[in-house]
């Protein structure tokens, strides 16, 4: 059996290896960073143009009121769920193997939420009035509409984002202290000193730290489930055919975990290479994530089929028409591709030989995420193109390059944030890896003793 981590890594080596990631990554890091900045540039240009001219440049119309922005918004929200899954749920379940990878997964949560939030702004016709959607105290007693799922959305996302940041930060405090202690003086030293909050590693600090971390983890789990359920409500609570489906919240949550896990695989492979983390992000861990992803993929597939079946056997002809339209209309290539990427491609993960095959898994993880992005688009667009009112059916609308540019740039924005984070903060949790190594050693010793005893 492959080991999640080698038991003979010295603690000092862990420090050294991780701290090295703050100093000298491979060249590829800078290439990625540069590409990411260029992509953000494209998106900013598109947004500036759209802001000045109007939403029309996105080529939305009546009935295509929403487009890629909302689809991509859901995609990024979904992406954020994996961090919580790895760091909070698996933490509570004492799954040790999460330890080398949860930090970047948690960072992914935060950054994908920040990206998703931007899409809300990009989508609004009057983004400069976005604060109307917040229940802020005001003299005229004008409240947002608490009936609107979109308002719940805004609140859920804000809560989730702030909790995620807190969780990420709190979990990082012992590591920040390590970094502080190993840093030459300069601005970074000052930064880490401030962020480490005077961490000394005393027994009391550790005890408080554990309790706090556990509390936030417990708090975060229902939040993660609720946030995507609420995003699902944006659709399920509406009256439109293809949206008004009871199973949407669990379906959305499953999809979210799914795309998040796939993204973790992608980033796992990239980080492992870029920051030379081969020793910590081992193939054994990869295998475990892949298996987890496979399981979630099957759950998603099941829920997806449930959705089709409930529409097909339901009595709502309009919804059924939308489903038929998805499978046969102008969106058919995308819809079939989504089903292929979401349900067929993950079958590769079932085979052991592919589970640790880095190039295959890299490609698979990208395809899964493509599938999940298409899934969101296929939820949003076909309903608009083929709603209740035949006179306004519009099967020809195609998002303009402005929309595509902003969607494209959002990946750059996410990558940029993520890459900068990995360069500035330890993306592998040093103290937990040390624990892991320690536990591993204990286990090996125990095994050795037990072996001896048997003789």
């Amino acid at each position, binding site marked *: 059996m492959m080991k999640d981590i080698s038991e003979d890594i010295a603690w000092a080596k862990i420090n050294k290896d991780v701290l090295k990631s703050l100093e000298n990554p491979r060249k590829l890091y800078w290439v990625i960073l540069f590409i990411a900045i260029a992509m953000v540039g494209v998106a900013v240009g598109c947004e500036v143009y759209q802001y000045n*001219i*109007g*939403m*029309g440049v996105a*080529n*939305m*119309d*009546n*009935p*295509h*009121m*929403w487009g890629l922005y909302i689809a991509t918004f859901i995609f990024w929200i979904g992406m954020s769920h994996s961090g919580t899954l790895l760091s909070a749920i698996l933490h509570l379940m004492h799954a040790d193997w999460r330890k080398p990878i949860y930090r970047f997964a948690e960072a992914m949560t935060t950054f994908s939420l920040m990206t998703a939030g931007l899409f809300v702004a990009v*989508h*609004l*016709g*009057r*983004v400069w*009035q*976005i604060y*109307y*959607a917040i*229940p802020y*105290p005001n003299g005229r*007693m*004008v*409240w*947002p*509409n*608490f*009936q*609107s*799922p*979109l*308002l719940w*959305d*805004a609140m859920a996302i804000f809560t989730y984002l702030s909790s995620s940041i807190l969780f990420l930060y709190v979990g990082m405090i012992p590591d920040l202290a390590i970094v502080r202690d190993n840093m030459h003086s300069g601005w970074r030293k000052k930064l880490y000193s401030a962020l480490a909050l005077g961490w000394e590693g005393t027994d009391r600090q550790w005890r408080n730290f554990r309790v706090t971390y556990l509390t936030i983890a417990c708090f975060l789990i229902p939040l993660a489930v609720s946030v995507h359920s609420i995003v699902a409500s*944006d659709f399920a*609570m*509406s*009256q*439109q055919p293809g949206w008004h489906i009871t199973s949407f919240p669990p379906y959305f949550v499953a999809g979210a975990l799914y795309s998040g896990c796939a993204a973790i695989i992608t980033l796992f492979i990239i980080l492992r290479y870029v920051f030379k983390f081969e020793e910590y992000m081992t193939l054994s861990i990869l295998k475990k994530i892949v298996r987890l992803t496979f399981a979630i993929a099957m759950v998603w597939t099941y829920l997806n089929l449930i959705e089709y079946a409930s529409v097909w056997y339901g009595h709502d002809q309009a919804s059924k028409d939308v489903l038929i339209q998805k499978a046969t209309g102008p969106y058919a290539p995308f819809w079939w591709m989504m089903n292929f990427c979401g349900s067929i491609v993950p079958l590769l993960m079932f085979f052991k030989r592919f589970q640790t095959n880095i190039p295959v898994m890299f490609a698979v993880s990208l395809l899964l995420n493509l599938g999940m992005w298409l899934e969101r688009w296929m939820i949003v667009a076909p309903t*608009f193109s083929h*709603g*209740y*009112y035949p*006179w*306004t059916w*519009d099967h020809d*609308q195609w998002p303009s390059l402005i929309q595509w540019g902003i969607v494209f740039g959002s990946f750059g924005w996410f990558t940029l944030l993520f890459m900068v984070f990995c360069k500035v903060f330890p993306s592998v949790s040093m103290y937990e890896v040390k624990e892991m190594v320690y536990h591993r050693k204990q286990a090996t010793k125990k095994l050795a003793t037990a072996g001896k005893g048997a003789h």
Partner: protein
Amino acid sequence: MSVSNLLENWSEFRHLHPVDDVPHDPYKWAMSIDLDACSGCNACSVACYAENNLPVVGKEKYAHGQAMHWMRIERYWDEDGREFPDQGAQFLPMMCQQCEAAPCETVCPVGATNHTPDGINSQIYNRCIGSRYCSANCPFKVRYFNWYDYPTTDNVWPAEMNQQLNPDVTVRGKGVMEKCTFCIQRVTVAKNNAKNEGRIVHDGDVQTACQQACPTSAISFGNLVDKESKVYKQWKAQQVELDKDAQAKDKNEEGRSELRGYRIFEELRPYPSVMYLERVRESAV
């Protein structure tokens, strides 16, 4: 500000439209459109452009589906597979149905679209942030979004043309949703005039722009609470009730009803305020 304050204020807006609702008093504006009289001539639509400062978007934007006609005339053909439409076409003027339980109202995150005590679905341009959720949830797709800043767009209202703009109606800028208002500006004038005279608005005091133009008088508009109004009488005669999702006509056996009144998508329960009267076709030819 406190939570209780917030909840109290909010509770004022929570109604179960229209079944449990406070009855509209003294006004509930409603319409009836006789499809047998409607000739599909488009006069109503042009009158609406004139009255409500609707921008002419031009060919390119029209091609992109960004037209702003609050009132559109739909033309349907019979779907019986005949080679020639020998029973003519069907025309249907479609505009905001001013639903009593409007799907658009509940979903707006900022409460920019509301129900007025008169039973009109109002749109507050200043409050709108342009999330377009209302339109997404509208079954009739009669809400129109300002995809561009039309007041500053070339050739929408160039010099002189802008002098035609109705000062009683806001000129909408980019990023807000708009739709038929039942000519709320005319209703308001009529209500104020009536109030000054210490009475309620009589039938005929106010006409919507489309109704006033309509050469065949197919459109009636009035107060559904007022038993003297033509609209009330028409709804009554057709046994169409505002807060029902199925009418006397629907309960009859197939084809047996002598009633012509119906509301579109009644089964979705938006409780529209517009009743249509079926077009009649001669059986003898």
